[in-house]
């Protein structure tokens, strides 16, 4: 696996920042849904875990999930969510990164990406626990974080993988991923 070049780094951070902007818009939707439909609200929560796994699926290089997650959180912080989101960005990014690392950064499937999302969800649960959010009745706790984990899987697994596929179709990924060996052999025509 290759180290991050400066171009990779800037692109990773850019992805994080774009996600930050998207999340700002998402937040509007989320705030509307929040009070009226607690279930739907948890199901939409997965968006917050998407940035890290998405960046990794796109660039396929170590470190991208973690860095993009922090970048996304920083933008959210600057856009008015407050710097505490940095802690969440840090923990969630780290969890996703570790999961990809556990598979030696070689697996890009729905399952692995989805698991990375669930890992992020677990990490944020850990922070919530310390914070005190988790002192709910056990049933409420299970419903809340269960739905959240499902949503994490759907967003980071299914949605992220499909969006990356759609991006591949636009040719942009060929600029940023390591070039296929096959392409080099095509030079000998």
């Amino acid at each position: 696996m290759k180290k991050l070049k400066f171009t990779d780094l800037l692109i990773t951070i850019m992805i994080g920042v774009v996600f930050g902007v998207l999340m700002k818009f998402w937040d509007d939707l989320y705030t509307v849904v929040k009070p009226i439909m607690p279930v739907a609200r948890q199901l939409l929560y997965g968006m917050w875990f998407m940035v890290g796994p998405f960046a990794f699926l796109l660039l396929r290089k170590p470190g991208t999930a973690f860095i993009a997650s922090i970048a996304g959180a920083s933008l959210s912080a600057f856009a008015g969510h407050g710097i505490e989101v940095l802690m969440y960005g840090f923990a969630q990014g780290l969890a996703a990164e570790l999961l990809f690392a556990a598979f030696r950064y070689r697996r890009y499937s729905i399952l692995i990406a989805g698991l990375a999302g669930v890992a992020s969800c677990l990490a944020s649960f850990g922070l919530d626990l310390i914070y005190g959010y988790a002192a709910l009745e056990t049933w409420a706790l299970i419903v809340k974080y269960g739905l959240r984990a499902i949503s994490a899987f759907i967003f980071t697994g299914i949605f992220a993988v499909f969006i990356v596929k759609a991006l591949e179709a636009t040719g942009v990924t060929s600029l940023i991923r390591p070039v296929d060996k096959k392409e080099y052999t095509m030079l000998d025509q």
Partner: protein
Amino acid sequence: MQRVFNWFTPKRETWLFRVNPALKFIVFFAFLIITLVNQSLPFAISQAILYGILFYIFSGYSLKKLLLLSIPLVISFLSTGLTMLLFGKGETVLWQWGLLKISEESIQHALLLGSKSLSFGFVGFTFILTIQPVLFFYAMMQQFRLPSKYAYSFIAAFRLIPAVTEELQIRRNALKVRNIQFSKGFRGIYERLQSYTVPLFAQSIRRAQRIAVAMEAKQYQMGAARTYYYPTRYTGVDMVFLLVMICSLSSAFLLSIYR
């Protein structure tokens, strides 16, 4: 010096503006961690009051803007508090209706959570309102040895935000004009996500790549020594800031013990 959004222009620049932004960040961040791990209600409340003073009196913004910013704070206070109040664990039940249950413990917990989220909001906003991103990154490089590759990547990416939001708007209009309908449920969410994000990411990635290339063409090298256009250093204000913050936190702590 540009702020991320133009709206963030203060009425007057208080002493908080002159504190070294990197120091301010570290101190505020440390305070947030204290808030995070604290489980004592009185301490949480006195912290919220302390940070409230910082936010309302020393951020230098007009009352109108501050009140506007308070709206999300109040909402998050209520929503975190209410969930905990109604669904929280507790033995001494005061009121129950089906699954909803209010107990003494859940009231305590709700107040604790509410104060914590207020503190988070106050500190977070005070920080954002009193720094300038570019200077913040310059300070992080000079005072805390943040590698320049991260600092400039952030600066460059932040610079592109207006273009990103603009594109998002254009996309929104275009989808409206062409009367595109989305399906219902998760499928619809995916369609929506996809039609907004794909062009946006394709564009942003290309742009980011070209800018990175241009930066390297300007002889930027990761890890190389460099000088800085904006000097950022520690001054007397920083001492004052540290003292004030430590004193107020300790007094908040003492107050919460010897009520």
